[in-house]
């Protein structure tokens, strides 16, 4: 679970960059921005529950 999460995020990052460049050069500036936003939201959807799980584990572990 842990390692391929890293590769997924890196893959989304690289993909968004490439798509952004392609769209920029083909003149569609706003599409490039939307693509990067969509990529960011997607990665956030993966990361936020992960962080939430971390904080709940810390709370139970350290009895905060």
């Amino acid at each position, binding site marked *: 679970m*842990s*390692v391929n*999460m*890293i*590769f997924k*995020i*890196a893959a*989304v*990052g*690289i993909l*968004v*960059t490439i798509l*952004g460049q392609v769209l920029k050069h083909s003149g569609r500036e706003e599409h490039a921005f939307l693509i*990067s936003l969509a990529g*960011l939201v997607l*990665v*956030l959807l993966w*990361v936020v529950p*992960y*962080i939430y*799980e*971390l*904080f709940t*584990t*810390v*709370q139970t*572990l*350290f*009895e*905060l």
Partner: protein
Amino acid sequence: MNIVQLSLFAVAGVLLAIVVKKERPEYGILLSMVVCVCIFFSVAGRLSILTESVNRLRELAAMDKGYFRTILKMIGITYVAQFAVNLCKDAGYATIAAQIEMFSKLSILLLALPVIEAFLDLILTVAA
């Protein structure tokens, strides 16, 4: 997950973050966040073993449970605060990091107050 796997994992994460950070800095920070979380989860199992054994030692020494719990809380607060502080510093927002650090120190001080009071009472009873 022993230390070799852990460090390989961290170095792989850092290299990927560098590649992604050049074009899209926000992915670099997200990547480092995920690496930190993965490392914590791989270590969390051992932490619970640690707390159990320290608890057993505490029972042997018949020490009060409250003190041990405050120590554990302090460690927890420090860990969470340092996690957030270093992430903010990585992202370049040192002011926010300083705020979090300040608040974490205050909350640890708040935790320590009852212990200090108990200590002072002990001294007063002995001295007076």
